[in-house]
């Protein structure tokens, strides 16, 4: 380990021409084979050693009240059942709320503490953990535990029924910009106006893999924890602070994740439960949630946006008002950026934004793919379409007429914004110019055909991150960082960057992630991993080059003794003279001749905030959608999508395209299918399984065409990348709604847009 750790903003930017051997290529996943052959192990699949115990969580049947009695006798009488943890026998744990506040916890509030009180705060609240020798036994014994409750009848569960309780959050994670101009006055004076409500209900992440934690109880009470998480360090610090453990007592590992979508940004309660049981019983314990229990924690909050827009007679936006109410729990204030987009997307001098929260008797909402963005943009982009129709202007033309050249929310220029090019290329590929402006005019048999467009937008952030690298004498490079691969392709793209920067073959690079012993990285979310970890990997490999070169220079008869680093290139595992590529040393030669087994380096990459803060940094997209709506039956099929995305440099065109495809599919899902159904009498989500919680099936998905629009950005980060995890979903639901309007003349503003809205 080097003593002098390099901290920096990264040496220099990746040159545009460095779209080289690996970067910018459609490279298949390095972990693809392991995944399809079942060799990639997930949290519940680690069966280290024998004698592992299984915990089964009991969920509350009531939404609000108190547990008045618990009877565990019958459960305990089963041979093989070790114990049942409830609020009555859980040991004293951390006292203060801050110990339970993980990296993605809302500011303030009191994070939920499983099994620490008789109080029931939400339906399906975990109220007991049954621990037994087999999963089947634990599950059976769970049916033998009897609870009595005092049920509180008055429930607040529906957003629309509780709007009177709306209030401003104490701390907003994304402060709402102050009003600019006088939006109400400008609205009154506008030639064309739209004033409508836009609603969407609860949605759950539902990744394929259930939440699971396998805790291996080792020597000296050391815990090795295989957890389903988007941040091993987040899980580790949570466990450490809640259970009072030191760093070396809890190692968290998560090599693969069967889908996150934000659900793994907070440690879920199975982690707490498994660690609790393991520490108490001094045994290894596994806890896996059921699909039903996947509906028992965070979700995309139900949201109501009241939008008013005004335009002048010549189609210029004069006023934008978005007053939004969304839900949170009674114990935390969950906020997301829903309304700020309304003040940023279009040139408009009069803007009034507001965001309030209604506390409901539900678990705290949780970031879900493009949290807030997908919500705010769907409402805004339908409203814009409505205004364009009123003004008699083509909706794409209308957007171009009101294009924002700078971010008026922040009064800053964009670091780059090729949205205009997205509109142009997307329209061309889609054939937008052939669109009949008349709604309801295109008929094919029993189907009405409609075309719609919408804009997408998402943040392009970079966070601090560390990375370390080790080059061994056989020329193999290992790079490590505690980030995660939640299915996005992190393993692959980081391997590409390392190979490209150091000039080695990808096969010679091993990228390690998902282990709390690796160098710090932030949570895997927010579409910042490429920018953040990618920059750290670049920095550490740049640093490795310097170290290697220094070593090479010191060799006896070194061909580089009088040469500067700028005058050599690192390629094909060699250092070679720029001027004469026949003069080179292989990396192995350098190490072997220096009698060094390996070279190590550890760096911290920091975003250049001074420079970045001068700009507003976002990814943009233009989504074009064709729908066919059965004129009598109201069934909607999305038959064609073109999504043109400007996201800076594309490191891997294959995994990038997959991200956008997945995002678009989810956008269609959000538009037409997804809906967690609440029973207002019981305060309980009722369709808690994948037969009734609908996501699209293959038959729902037709043609999706992805375009990456070239975009050069020197500001966002040294790689010039912007991240693609979320942009694909943003705007799709609006484009579908706009297409349905164009097909039928009916404007749908409630998600999901199911057929009964069209009868």
């Amino acid at each position: 380990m080097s003593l002098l750790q390099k901290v920096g903003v990264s040496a220099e930017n990746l040159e545009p021409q460095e779209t080289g051997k690996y970067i910018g290529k459609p490279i298949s996943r390095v972990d693809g084979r392991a995944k399809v052959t079942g060799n990639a192990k997930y949290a519940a699949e680690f069966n280290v050693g024998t004698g592992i115990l299984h915990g089964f969580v009991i969920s509350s049947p009531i939404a609000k009240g108190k547990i008045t009695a618990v009877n565990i006798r019958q459960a305990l009488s089963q041979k093989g059942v070790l114990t049942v943890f409830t609020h009555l026998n859980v040991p004293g744990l951390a006292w203060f709320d801050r110990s339970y506040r993980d990296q993605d916890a809302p500011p303030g509030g009191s994070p939920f503490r499983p099994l620490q009180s008789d109080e029931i705060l939400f339906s399906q609240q975990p109220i007991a953990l049954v621990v037994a020798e087999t999963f089947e036994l634990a599950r059976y014994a769970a049916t033998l535990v009897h609870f009595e409750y005092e049920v509180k009848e008055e429930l607040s569960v529906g957003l629309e029924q509780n709007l009177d309780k709306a209030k401003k959050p104490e701390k907003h994670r994304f402060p709402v910009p102050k009003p600019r101009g006088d939006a109400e006055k400008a609205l009154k004076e506008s030639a064309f106006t739209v004033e409508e409500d836009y609603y969407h209900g609860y949605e759950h992440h539902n990744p394929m893999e259930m939440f699971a934690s396998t805790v291996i109880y080792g020597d000296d009470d050391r815990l090795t924890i295989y957890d389903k998480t988007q941040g091993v360090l987040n899980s580790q610090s949570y466990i450490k602070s809640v259970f009072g453990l030191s760093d070396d007592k809890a190692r968290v590992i998560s090599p693969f994740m069967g889908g996150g979508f934000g659900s793994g940004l907070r440690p879920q309660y199975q982690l707490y439960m498994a660690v609790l049981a393991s520490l108490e019983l001094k045994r290894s314990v596994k806890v896996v949630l059921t699909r039903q229990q996947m509906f028992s924690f965070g979700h995309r909050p139900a949201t109501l946006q009241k939008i008013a827009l005004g335009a002048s007679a010549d189609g210029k936006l004069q006023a934008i008002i978005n007053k939004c109410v969304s839900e949170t729990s009674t114990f935390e204030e969950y906020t997301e950026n829903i309304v700020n987009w309304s003040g940023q997307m279009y040139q408009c001098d009069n803007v009034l934004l507001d965001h309030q929260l209604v506390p409901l008797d539900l678990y705290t909402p949780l970031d879900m793919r493009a949290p807030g963005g997908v919500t705010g943009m769907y409402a805004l982009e339908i409203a814009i379409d409505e205004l364009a129709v009123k003004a008699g202007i083509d909706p794409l033309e209308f957007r171009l007429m009101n294009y924002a050249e700078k971010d008026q929310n922040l009064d800053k220029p964009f670091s780059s914004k090729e949205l205009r090019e997205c509109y142009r290329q997307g329209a061309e590929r889609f054939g937008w110019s052939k669109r009949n402006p008349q709604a309801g005019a295109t008929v094919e048999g029993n189907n009405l055909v409609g075309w719609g467009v919408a804009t997408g937008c998402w943040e392009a952030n970079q966070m601090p991150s560390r990375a370390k690298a080790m080059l061994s004498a056989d020329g193999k490079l290992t790079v490590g960082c505690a980030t995660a691969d939640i299915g996005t392709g992190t393993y692959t793209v980081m391997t590409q960057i390392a190979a490209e920067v150091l000039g080695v073959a990808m096969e010679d690079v091993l990228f390690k992630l998902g282990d709390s012993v690796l160098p710090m990285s932030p949570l895997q979310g927010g579409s910042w991993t490429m920018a953040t970890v990618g920059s750290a990997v670049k920095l550490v490999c740049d640093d490795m080059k310097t170290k290697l070169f220094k070593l090479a220079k010191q060799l006896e008869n070194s061909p580089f003794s009088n040469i500067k680093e700028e005058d050599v290139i690192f390629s094909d595992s060699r250092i070679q003279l720029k001027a004469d590529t026949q003069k080179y040393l292989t990396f192995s030669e350098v190490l072997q001749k220096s009698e060094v087994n390996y070279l190590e380096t550890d760096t911290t990459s920091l975003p250049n905030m001074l420079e970045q803060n001068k700009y507003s940094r976002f990814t943009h997209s233009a989504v074009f959608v064709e729908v066919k709506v059965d004129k009598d039956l109201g069934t909607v099929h999305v038959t064609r999508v073109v999504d043109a995305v400007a996201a800076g440099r594309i490191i891997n065109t294959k995994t990038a395209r997959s991200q956008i495809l997945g995002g678009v599919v989810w956008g269609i899902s959000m538009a037409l299918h997804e809906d967690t159904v609440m029973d207002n009498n019981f305060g309980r989500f009722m369709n808690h399984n994948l037969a009734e919680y609908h996501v699209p099936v293959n038959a729902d998905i037709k043609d999706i065409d992805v375009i990456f629009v070239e975009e050069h950005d020197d500001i966002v980060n040294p790689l010039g990348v912007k991240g693609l995890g979320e942009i694909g979903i943003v705007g799709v639901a609006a484009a579908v709604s706009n297409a349905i309007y164009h097909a039928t003349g009916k404007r749908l503003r409630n998600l999901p847009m199911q057929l009964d809205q069209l009868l």
Partner: protein
Amino acid sequence: MNKFTFVRVDSPDAAIAELDEHYSPKFIAGGTNLLDLMKENVECPDHLIDINHLAFNKIEDSPGGGLRLGALVTNADTAWNQEVEKRYPLLSQAILAGASPQLRNMATNGGNLMQRTRCYYFYDTATPCNKREPGSGCSAIGGYNRILGILGTSEQCIATHPSDMCVALAALGATVNVTGKNGNRIIPFADFHRLPGDRPDLDNTLDAGDIVTSIDLPNEDFTSYYKYLKIRDRASYAFALVSVAAALKMEDGKIKEARLALGGVAHKPWRSNEAEVLLAGNTANKDSFEKAADVILQGAKGYGDNTFKIELAKRAIVRALTEAAGLEEQA
């Protein structure tokens, strides 16, 4: 899920004999419905009797000149069977509109008849449900009922029978062959499933321990004018909001005989003799289809979230009959 014992039997007698030995025994065929219900603690059998090895595993000619479908033949093998495709294409269409290929590969014909409602509350033991726990109340009335019934409902239960296959079987006038402690019985399809009334816990008219052995399809020709139309919230792998099985015999643009049954709307496949009589002898056109729809939907009642089904069913009937009559190409 509770603890249970398991036995595999190879004759109906052995299966029936197993019944007396246990407190709450259940037959298991494909298991695609029963196991889900066991995992949710909705069904808690203490003993599973695996009937997959009984000899009711063939599709063969029936004594009356029709076709006999063994109760243990899978839905997939039935739908793709050449005789079924040729002589009862409506049935193939209906089966293939249901579930997913994987499920159809496991699901049996007997199990399909016996599958239970998909009412959310029935599946969730945290909520009252008269079907699951008689007398506890019906949570769906006044609760969330988008997928539930509009016809033949009772104050006790508004559940639907979720099968697609059964809607076609009802339209085709199938009969169900059953064996049990009291010997063999033949049950006309219309009498197999029942309405909830004040006994919503009973889905059908079988006696405890009866085994469905086969289903007989009568020797009739509905091979030219037929349509199974299923309307659902996604393109596949979803239960019907409304489905229509329509089959016609036509002569010179006139309907000679009609069969019409609805799925997704009632506790049983909903067939109306009156509507069929009304169609017979009429010209196949929108007007007569709408009249038939009004007749079959007489007395339909919405419960809020599902009220749209009344209008949807009407439109679906018109569409299905239009396509069946060949007035429009099948979608």
